[in-house]
């Protein structure tokens, strides 16, 4: 059973690969019906699938492919001309074949699909009567009867397992045929390479290795062969011929590559830590000799890690051609369905992308191309009227741009009508009148991605159901991609999908807000600007700033991530200008930390789907930093009322209604126990709650813990660890303590001392010695002690 499964897997993988190529070949074939190379290739696919499926007892599939083979074989021998009608039948049968293969993949059996109708058609095309024995029986259908003698022979001679039963002549012919096939294939490959401007030095000698070099490569029908002298075992000959052309590849389970990628991720994190440690060490042991050596090692490690990362990334890369291949067929079907003339030009199908991304971009491209065919390209008569060639062109391009891949879809159709788009959206209530007015052309183009939007007047089979383009947007955004649309009315539309090369490791800009850090994917950052508070204006309750010629709407990162404003914001702030397609947003942050390569880690099942957070990464210091989801952030920003840099002092928390004297809390900060006791004695009669701290550091920690809401602080100036001035300055950094009265209690009496006290934010200055009454009255005054408590 297991062995069967293994064979089945191989069969499926092989078949799907063959079919992928088949679609393209068939469409090409329609344009050049006489191309024997192509025909041979297509015939071989049908033949291979037939052979394998009969071996695996998939009778329905065998039955179908057998008839396909008949038709193709005749065409190959020039007995049948491939007309569009014939092609329709062939394409239909290939669709059936795909459906069957899918069924086999899902259920391991080929039941449930009726192929008889198609087989009849195929049979008619190949000149038969159309009376074909209905298949689906357990035994392979005895269809040979409707097939001409020649075909039987041909296909029989090609069934590889039959080698043993062949006559020597047949064998000779078969060997010859296989050889020619191979050579023909090689020639095609060579031609392609030459066309692509590559030199082909290594191919020639390789070909010489084949046991029987024949001078003329391309040939279709078996030519009499010069008998080979030492033809030992024919069985061995076949594999021997194949050996030199076997591709140097290994199939690897994707899971293994994913695991490898994860390990590399860990390595990158370790590298980041190493660099950080190196920096620290450098600072501490400046000038030491061993530093240079350490530096070298660190830079080698970081260099190799980067190379390794790229190498592993490359193993996961697939050419985008894998996705592009299905489009010629799709366009062909669409042109017939829509009665339009459309040509598809493909460029850069060799461009490589990460496997997971290749899988994600397939669907969006289908939608975009369908859309271009349906809405973009006009019908031939209209095109002629507008002075365009009747045949419309869709260009599909892929190319590298920085560390992004750009997939560009251009059509020369009617283009997008901005006014019509806006009206349509207004009708459907997708946007408001006001939004429509203030909308730029680019923003209007982006309307086609709104869910529920469809410009098709009538719902056709092809598009117009109002789903599709929004799927494009979600899928592309899922892989951190950006969509850019450009269009000119009457000239055409160009859609660009900009997609990152890989998903796992990205460049990020690290920003700080209060005591927290966040990572913003660098791909979405256009620029950073340093601004002062007075450059921020408020328009309709939203903060904006002027950036060169533009007005940029602003949002504070703290408002989005509910960051508590503990530290006072400084006069200056930084604005990170985020760009996503056509929309821009300024994100206000407190500090810019720097650029770093980060490894995206998921927050796990428990925390998935948090708005505005794309994941997390582990920093050089071992801490976790959240990664900003720019797409979601832009959405959230629309609904966040920016408090920007306005002072939202959380005074509310401090102004508790005082109902008894002990609701008042005063902190006494002094390093001398005696002094603390003296102050305590002076204040105790009032019934206040008194908290003591031995030095500035301790006082600050008590404040930070936030267990009490202090109404005033009595601070000694001379203290170990942190003196009174420093303490006052530190306290004033916190927004919520801005208005906390700080009273200096000191024996320093100099004028300059008093000045320093005022500078650091002290409101009163009591010099030792003092009377208890004086101290008490000063405190009472500063905490607004209610007289009724006295």
């Amino acid at each position, binding site marked *: 059973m297991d062995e069967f499964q293994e064979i089945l897997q191989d069969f499926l993988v092989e078949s799907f690969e063959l079919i992928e190529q088949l679609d393209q070949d068939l469409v090409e074939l329609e344009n050049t019906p006489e191309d024997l190379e192509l025909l041979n290739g297509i015939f071989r696919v049908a033949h291979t699938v037939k052979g394998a499926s009969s071996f695996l007892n998939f009778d329905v599939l065998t039955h179908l492919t057998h008839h396909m083979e008949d038709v193709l074989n005749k065409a190959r021998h020039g007995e049948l001309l491939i007309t569009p009608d014939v092609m329709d039948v062939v394409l239909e049968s290939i669709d059936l074949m795909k459906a069957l293969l899918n069924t086999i993949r899902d259920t391991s059996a080929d039941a449930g699909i009726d192929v008889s109708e198609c087989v009849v058609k195929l049979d008619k095309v190949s000149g038969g009567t159309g009376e074909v024995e209905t298949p689906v029986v357990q035994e392979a259908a005895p269809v040979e009867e409707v097939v001409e003698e020649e075909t039987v022979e041909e296909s029989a001679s090609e069934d590889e397992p039959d080698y043993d039963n062949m006559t020597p002549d047949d064998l000779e012919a078969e060997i010859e045929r296989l050889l020619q096939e191979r050579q023909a294939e090689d020639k095609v490959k060579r031609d392609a390479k030459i066309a692509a401007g590559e030199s082909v030095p290594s191919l020639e000698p390789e070909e010489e290795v084949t046991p029987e070099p024949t001078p003329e490569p391309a040939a279709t029908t078996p030519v009499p062969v010069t008998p080979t002298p030492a033809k030992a075992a024919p069985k061995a000959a076949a594999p021997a011929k194949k050996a030199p052309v076997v591709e140097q590849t290994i199939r690897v389970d994707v899971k293994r590559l994913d695991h490898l990628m994860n390990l590399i991720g860990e390595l990158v994190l370790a590298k980041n830590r190493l660099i950080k440690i190196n920096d620290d060490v450098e600072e501490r042991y400046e000038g030491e000799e061993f530093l240079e050596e350490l530096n070298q090692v660190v830079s080698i490690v970081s260099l190799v890690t980067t190379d390794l990362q790229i190498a592993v990334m490359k193993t996961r890369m697939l050419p985008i051609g894998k996705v592009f291949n299905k489009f010629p067929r799709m366009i062909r079907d669409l042109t017939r369905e829509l009665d339009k003339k459309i040509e598809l030009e493909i460029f850069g199908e060799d461009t490589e992308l990460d496997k997971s991304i290749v899988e994600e971009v397939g669907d969006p491209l289908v939608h975009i191309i369908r859309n271009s065919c349906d809405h973009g390209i006009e019908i031939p008569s209209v095109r002629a009227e507008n002075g365009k060639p009747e045949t419309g062109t869709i260009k599909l391009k892929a190319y590298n741009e920085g560390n992004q891949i750009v997939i560009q879809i251009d059509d020369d159709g009617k283009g997008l009508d901005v006014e019509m788009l806006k009206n349509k959206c207004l009708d459907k209530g997708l946007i408001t009148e006001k939004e429509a007015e203030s909308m730029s052309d680019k923003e209007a183009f982006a309307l086609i991605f709104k869910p529920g939007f469809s410009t098709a007047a009538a719902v056709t089979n092809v598009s117009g159901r109002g789903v599709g383009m929004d799927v494009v947007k979600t899928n592309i955004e899922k892989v951190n991609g950006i969509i850019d649309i450009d269009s000119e009315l009457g000239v055409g539309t160009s859609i660009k999908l900009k997609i990152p090369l890989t998903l796992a490791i990205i460049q990020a800009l690290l920003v700080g807000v209060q005591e927290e850090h966040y990572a913003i994917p660098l791909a979405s950052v256009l620029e950073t600007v340093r601004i002062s508070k007075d450059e921020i204006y408020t328009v309709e309750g939203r903060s904006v700033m002027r950036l060169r010629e533009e007005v940029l709407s602003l949002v504070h990162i703290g408002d989005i991530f509910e960051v508590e404003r503990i530290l006072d914001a400084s006069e200056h702030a930084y604005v990170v200008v985020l760009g996503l397609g056509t929309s821009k947003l300024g994100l206000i942050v407190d500090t810019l930390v720097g650029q770093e390569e980060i490894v995206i880690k998921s927050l796990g099942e428990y925390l998935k789907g948090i708005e505005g957070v794309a994941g997390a990464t*582990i920093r050089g210091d071992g801490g976790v930093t959240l990664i900003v989801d720019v797409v979601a952030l832009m959405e959230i920003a629309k609904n966040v009322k920016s408090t920007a840099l306005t002072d939202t002092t959380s005074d509310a928390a401090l102004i508790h209604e005082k109902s008894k004297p002990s609701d008042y809390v005063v902190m006494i900060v002094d390093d001398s126990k005696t002094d603390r006791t003296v102050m305590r004695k002076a204040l105790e009669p009032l019934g206040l709650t008194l908290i003591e701290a031995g030095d500035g550091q301790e006082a600050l920690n008590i404040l930070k813990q936030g267990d009490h809401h202090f109404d005033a602080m009595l601070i000694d100036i001379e203290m170990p660890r942190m003196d009174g001035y420093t303490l006052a300055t530190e306290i004033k950094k916190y927004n919520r303590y801005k208005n906390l009265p700080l009273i200096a209690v000191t024996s320093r009496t100099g004028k300059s001392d008093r000045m320093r006290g005022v500078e650091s934010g002290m409101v009163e200055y009591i010099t030792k010695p003092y009377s208890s009454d004086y101290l008490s009255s000063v405190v009472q005054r500063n905490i607004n002690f209610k007289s009724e408590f006295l």
Partner: protein
Amino acid sequence: MSDKLKQIISKQNEKQEETLDHSDDIVQLVGFVIGEEEYAIPILAIQEIIKPFPWTRVPQVPKYVVGVFNMRGAVIPLIDLRLKFGLSPKKQSDETRFIVMRHGDDIAGFVIDRLTMAIRIKKSDIGPPPETLAGDDTMIDGVGKQEDRIITILKVDKLLKRDF
């Protein structure tokens, strides 16, 4: 003297054998305290118990999800059981621990007030949760009775399930 020792040793061996005999019926739990109550979870659900650790706050989550922390390269959510159980927040002390629990692929760290001990309890001593608390939503797996105390045994899968 040595006779006495032998006696003691043989007694101990007997005891051990006894417990081994019934090992099928015995559940091993780890007990911990949150607020005033003692709770327990199966020892096998615990990946590790660690001392408090710096963590990173995560926005837009309920208060009891205090954030995420880095455990040897994995980003793990941290849940404060005091807050989850509706108690008032408390400063972390020397006894505070993070218990990292795992159930299938789900993993999270939980802040608890203090550990008590590893508990071996007979299955027969575990009763069902009180009827008023029974139901599909309950986090209580059962109630263990041991000498003079009652231990609430929690369902790890329910603890690890996201409920917001």
